[in-house]
């Protein structure tokens, strides 16, 4: 997978977190990204000049903090309201990433988010197919797995 797909995704995450939440995002340390017993996994499939998927892994604590900032309400569990809000944020980030990719002349469409709640703690993994980017914010960590191939 080409490393040049990473920057548009990272830029989209930092821009959206800053604009919507007033939160700065930085690259985190490689390894486990923890925060609570569960995590929200959101997969967005990408089709076009580059195809594959972007997987957003938000640990429970990070998720609750994000939705709390948006809703102004105290939240305790990863219910449908919370995971749906995270699905939309991931959708917005992916839309922005697709727009940045199109500026590099890779035109692609994003599919609707597939949302799941998992018990496992997020663990960053690397392979030749998937690039995992652990990210850090002052309201918790998150992980993004990018798995995109050029189809042109």
């Amino acid at each position, binding site marked *: 997978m080409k490393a040049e797909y990473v920057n548009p995704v990272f830029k989209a995450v930092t821009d959206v977190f800053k604009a919507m939440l007033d939160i700065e995002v930085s690259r985190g340390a490689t390894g486990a990204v923890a925060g609570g017993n569960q995590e929200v996994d959101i997969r967005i499939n990408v089709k076009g000049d580059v195809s594959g998927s972007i997987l957003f892994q938000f640990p429970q604590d990070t998720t609750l903090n994000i939705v709390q900032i948006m809703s102004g309400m105290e939240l305790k569990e990863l219910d449908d309201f919370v995971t749906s*809000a*995270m699905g939309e944020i991931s959708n917005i980030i992916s839309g922005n990433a697709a727009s940045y990719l199109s500026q590099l002349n890779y035109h692609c469409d994003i599919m609707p988010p597939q949302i799941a709640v998992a018990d496992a703690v997020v663990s960053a993994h690397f392979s030749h197919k998937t690039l995992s980017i652990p990210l850090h914010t002052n309201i918790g960590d998150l992980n993004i797995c990018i798995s995109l191939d050029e189809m042109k």
Partner: protein
Amino acid sequence: MIWKEKYKIGIPTIDKQHEELFNRVADFVQAIRQEGRWEEKIEKVKDTMVFLQEYVVTHFNYEEQYQQALGYPDCEEHHNIHEAFKADIQSAAKEFADAGYHEQAVQILAGRLLAWLINHVVAADQKMAQYVTEQGLEI
């Protein structure tokens, strides 16, 4: 309360409409998430769906007329975003009515609506306000 001063774009009429929109969405979110029987919350869901289909359309029309009057270059793109949102709300309203206002479907829409609204105001609407400032146009 979900409205924040930082969401203001500096165009008073639009800011006022946004604040009203955020307040109504906040009321809706609070109503569907508080303790109590779901059946008692359905009226609030119905009211909100009507509000979203009426007030939001009025607000979108105002924004679009404002953009046309300014000669805003991203007018069409902004219009398309509004149209997609209107279609989404219309289809959700129909789905809710047909299926009997199931709680899960309403909670899912509420989460999506909250994130969509915040992003639209801080991204697309801020972009329009930035254009007004850059061009030195009168608000």
